């Protein structure tokens, strides 16, 4: 994937999140404060616009620009978390102008670690990590099994989707949802749902299917 593919990923993410903003907000209303879709729409639209104007000439620069934009514009818990994820992913790409399967894998891992360190959540706490964690693992398994970018990103997106479903029976232990304790059981985690969208956008772009 080259710089323009990474730009396309961000654009497609913004498009999907905008389209699904109400659903994300609805999920957050059930176990949080009902603003996740609003927050991410604001953040990703800003990131997309900022990117249009920015001279980000490497994939790493693109992701770091997005990270900063998300941090500056999103607010809430998800802003710093996703912002950090994109910044760390971008940093891990250094100056590369072309990103191969392995490199993308380690940048996804860097994203995971960034969220993990900042938010101090663990898989099973019913957060975005419960979609991202399985996705990173599935990606790496696929890549080690010889999958190309298309296959590995599809595996990641699918694993994220399964991870999202697995948040349903979980009891939230981080973020605002944790105040609800038992009452979070039976609901999807909104952050896990947005992670699915971002990874779906990645798979779409890798497959060359983005609009």
């Amino acid at each position, binding site marked *: 994937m080259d710089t323009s593919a990474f730009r396309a990923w961000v654009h497609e993410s913004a498009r999907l999140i905008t389209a699904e903003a109400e659903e994300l907000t609805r999920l957050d209303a059930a176990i949080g404060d009902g*603003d996740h879709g609003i927050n991410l729409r604001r953040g990703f639209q800003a990131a997309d616009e900022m990117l249009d104007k920015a001279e980000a000439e490497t994939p790493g620069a693109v992701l770091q620009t997005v990270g900063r934009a998300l941090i500056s514009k999103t607010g809430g*818990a998800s802003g*710093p978390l996703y912002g950090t994820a994109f910044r760390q992913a971008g940093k891990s790409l250094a100056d590369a102008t072309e990103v191969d399967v392995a490199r993308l894998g380690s940048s996804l891992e860097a994203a995971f670690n960034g969220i993990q360190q900042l938010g101090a959540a663990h898989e099973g706490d019913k957060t975005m990590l419960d979609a991202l964690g399985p996705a990173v693992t599935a990606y790496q398994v696929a890549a080690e099994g010889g999958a190309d970018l298309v296959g590995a990103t599809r595996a990641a997106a699918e694993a994220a989707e399964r991870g999202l479903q697995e948040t349903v029976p979980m009891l939230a232990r981080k973020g*605002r949802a944790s105040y609800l304790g038992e009452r979070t059981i039976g609901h999807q985690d909104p952050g896990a749902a947005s992670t699915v969208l971002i990874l779906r956008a990645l798979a779409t772009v890798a497959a060359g299917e983005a609009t």
Partner: protein
Amino acid sequence: MKKLINAPDDVLTDALIGFGAAYPELTVNLEDRYITRGPTAGKVGLVSGGGSGHEPLHGGFVGYGMLDAACPGEVFTSPVPDQLLAATKAVNGGAGVLHIVKNYTGDVLNFQMAAELAGDDGLQVESVLVNDDVAVENSTYTAGRRGTGGTVFVEKIVGAAAERGADLATCAAIGREVNDRSRSFGVALTANVIPATGSPGFELGDNEIEIGVGIHGEPGRARGPMSTAREVAAIALEAIHADMPLDDEVMVMVNGLGGTPLIELYVVYAAVADWLKAHGGIITRNLVGDYITSLEMAGCSITVCRMTPDLTDLWDAPVQTPALRWGR
């Protein structure tokens, strides 16, 4: 949704414009979204912030004897690091800046990032985390207790200390002391409606109340039947008392959540005073009114702080803000 607004997306901007027009003695930075009285040379700068919808918190507490700046986020959404950083720089009088942060993941993370960025720029920043809401079990299985009414006490008392010249470490220590001595508990009679979504945060039956509600309408410990002011006061005070004994000199705030008539807060205050008297508590200071709200939610929260003579002295010190004023 029935609200006196122009458009859901414009609420914060319009409100900041209105606030700025109403309080010309304060500066509203619309670009960077903060309210400030400007820096005071040699004084520790106090910055707080959080999601909007809790007015007068925090903007209404900017002024002499209290905050130097407040950063409002979108409704119920924490502010972003950029605005916190801009405000932090704007109030730096050379003695460092203290962040007063309510304990919500979003607020904590955004303030933390701002503090790091400020540190990179060579500013000295400390922060005090407010987590006074006993409705949340303080366990390793949650994000920890929420910051609610205790924030008002922390901002006022640290504000007085800073005004008197306390250094950054002392301000932070006093803030933590006030937080350690403060506990809150809230009860909602109706839900609020976030402008951006237009629908109630939760559904409550005609005869139900939400016990231990958060200031964003986060559900609480339990739902219960509608009961009397006396029972509501007892529920809140018992929850607090179980966590921190109330048999001594205390300051009490009976706070309206936004949609409750003041006359009802007086009725609750009478019940609170009665309960405390019966349990050996002595109210030495009080606030009754809307100080930390949750949009149009009906209900109230009760906050108690165990006082010391020093804290009382700082509480009594002059304050001149839109929402709290005395002594000058």
